[in-house]
């Protein structure tokens, strides 16, 4: 039986939280495959994070090279596929982040491996459960190829705790690196002091009913008061009110916070697919018939114009009394 490779993304000297969820899935899969968990990190200067990654894996393979500075699928996928061969791995796991979604299928193609995306449960060496049809169906899939590749849905697996003993760190030999004429010209990072949408304990989302981008300011005030992250429905993103990276839904981010507050969101199937896993859902909508109320634990029929200022005042009062 083979090793399980886990594609880990790093930030500075630490593993990205998103990748810790993949490590958990990799651990489960490694039990089935009867091999070790081998973490692979790729980039420029990623060696600095190797020590942190080693706390979670049995081995760490580091590809640290100036030509790997940008997260290009063209350069990363062949290294990942090559690492499968050298580690004698029979499975590759990664988180369905924007990089994971870009790199993992390309690696699967190079390996001739079948891939299951957005896995929410590991049921054996090659059996996985994943959502389809905007989360309206759960598919149990079986992969027939000798090597299996999966991307996991971050919210479906807990973050891995450090292992009892740190793994061995080894430098991988990148060999020929060919970006095939692809290059990252620049990255315009979103500057936000708020927690990451995927990690936040509280998410406040606005929909088309917010009418204009400037009206999201009041949602931001509520979000910051609660220490949460701001989200939006696809309709609000489509209308250009807020950037698309705030989109929660089938084609955006999947969230599962402790508290999800949907404001002026009707609750289209594709939005529900992104937030149905939340522990407590609050819906505030002026239309009492809106489908969002069918999944809400607490529903308030009201306009956002009246409800949100009152909600802010009430939360402030609560915080003041908690002192």
């Amino acid at each position, binding site marked *: 039986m083979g090793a399980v490779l886990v594609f880990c993304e790093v930030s500075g000297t630490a593993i990205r939280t998103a990748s810790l969820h993949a490590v958990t899935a990799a651990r489960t899969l490694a039990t089935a495959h009867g091999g070790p968990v081998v973490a692979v990190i790729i980039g420029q200067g990623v060696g600095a994070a190797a020590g942190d990654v080693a706390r979670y894996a049995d081995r760490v393979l580091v590809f640290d090279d100036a030509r790997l500075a940008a997260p290009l*699928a063209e350069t990363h996928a062949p290294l990942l596929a090559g690492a499968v061969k050298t580690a004698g791995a029979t499975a590759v796991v990664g988180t369905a982040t*924007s990089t994971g*979604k*870009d790199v*993992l*299928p*390309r690696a*699967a*193609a*190079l390996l001739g*491996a*079948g*891939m299951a*995306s*957005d896995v929410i449960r590991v049921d054996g060496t090659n059996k996985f459960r994943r*959502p*389809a049809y*905007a*989360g*309206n*169906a*759960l*598919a*149990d*899939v*079986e*992969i*027939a190829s000798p090597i299996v590749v999966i991307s996991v849905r971050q919210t479906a697996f807990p973050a891995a705790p450090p292992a009892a003993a740190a793994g061995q760190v080894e430098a991988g030999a990148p060999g020929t690196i060919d970006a*095939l004429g*692809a*290059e*990252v010209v*620049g*990255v*315009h*990072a*979103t500057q936000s002091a708020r927690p990451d949408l995927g990690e936040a304990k*509280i998410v406040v989302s606005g929909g088309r009913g917010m009418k204009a981008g400037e009206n999201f300011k009041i949602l931001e005030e509520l979000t910051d008061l609660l220490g949460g992250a701001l989200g939006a429905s*696809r309709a609000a993103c489509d209308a250009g009110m807020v950037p*698309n*990276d705030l989109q929660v839904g*089938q*084609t955006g981010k999947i969230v599962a916070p*402790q*508290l999800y507050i949907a404001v002026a969101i009707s609750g289209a*199937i594709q939005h529900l697919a992104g937030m*149905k896993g939340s522990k407590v*859902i*609050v819906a505030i909508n002026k239309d009492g018939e809106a489908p969002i*109320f*069918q999944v*809400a*634990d*607490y*529903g*308030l*029929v009201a306009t956002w114009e009246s409800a949100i200022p009152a*909600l802010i005042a*009430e939360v402030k009062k*609560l915080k003041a009394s908690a002192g």
Partner: protein
Amino acid sequence: MKILVTCKRVPNPEQKLKLAGGKLDLTGATWQINTFDEYAVETALRLTEKGKGGERSGEVVAVAIGPKEVSQQLRGVLAMGADRGLLIAGDDAALDADAVARILAKVVEREKPDLVILGKQTVDGDSNQVGQLLAGLLGWPQATFLATIRLAADGKSATTTREVDAGVEEKRVRLPAVVTVDLRIIAKKAVRNEALAGPDAEWEETQRYASLKGIMAAKKKEIKELTPAELGATVTPLVRVVSLEAPPARKAGARVGSVEELVAKLHNEAKVI
């Protein structure tokens, strides 16, 4: 500029799924083109136009894999303005992303396009794999989840922006390349071929709908039918769906009468604030 676009048919996502005995019952389903593929077609058309409604230059070839009935969706894409169609015979339920990518790779060998544009995912399988698999099989560069694309005047490269977890990434790829498009791609100024359209060129903020003229013209356009075998593709799906079931339903909770009651319940009952 020759562009290949994919159009998969999907069951109408607004219809309730009929799930029973671990299977999805699609009898009586109405089918439509996958929304993101429709955006891919719109992108391809804009890249071959001298501005909105302007003269066209280049060729847009639409490819679908599925049963004969998919010609209906292909005809719709031809009515939008695509030049010709390819219909590859296949049973859409039995194909996995790998098989689709292998078939498309053979289509690419045959058609030799400068650019392949796909939707970033289909809204039934939700796998988000085919574009990346295809690029990997071809050894071509890829740019996924595009918000914008600009083709260089010399036709040798494309500069794109992609919405990634950290923000917006600007990626340039050499052609030929595979790209997949996200919903922002239909914004007014998201797509431009520098060889054909100036910086002021803009389109409607939506995918175009077929005009009567387009529908009439589409009737005369060619849809060539082929089998995977004729293309030299072997179709052995690697991923099999063993069963499909409905997720546990979430029960609707209680209505609250006021903001005060809501906050009290969230604090005392749910204990989340």
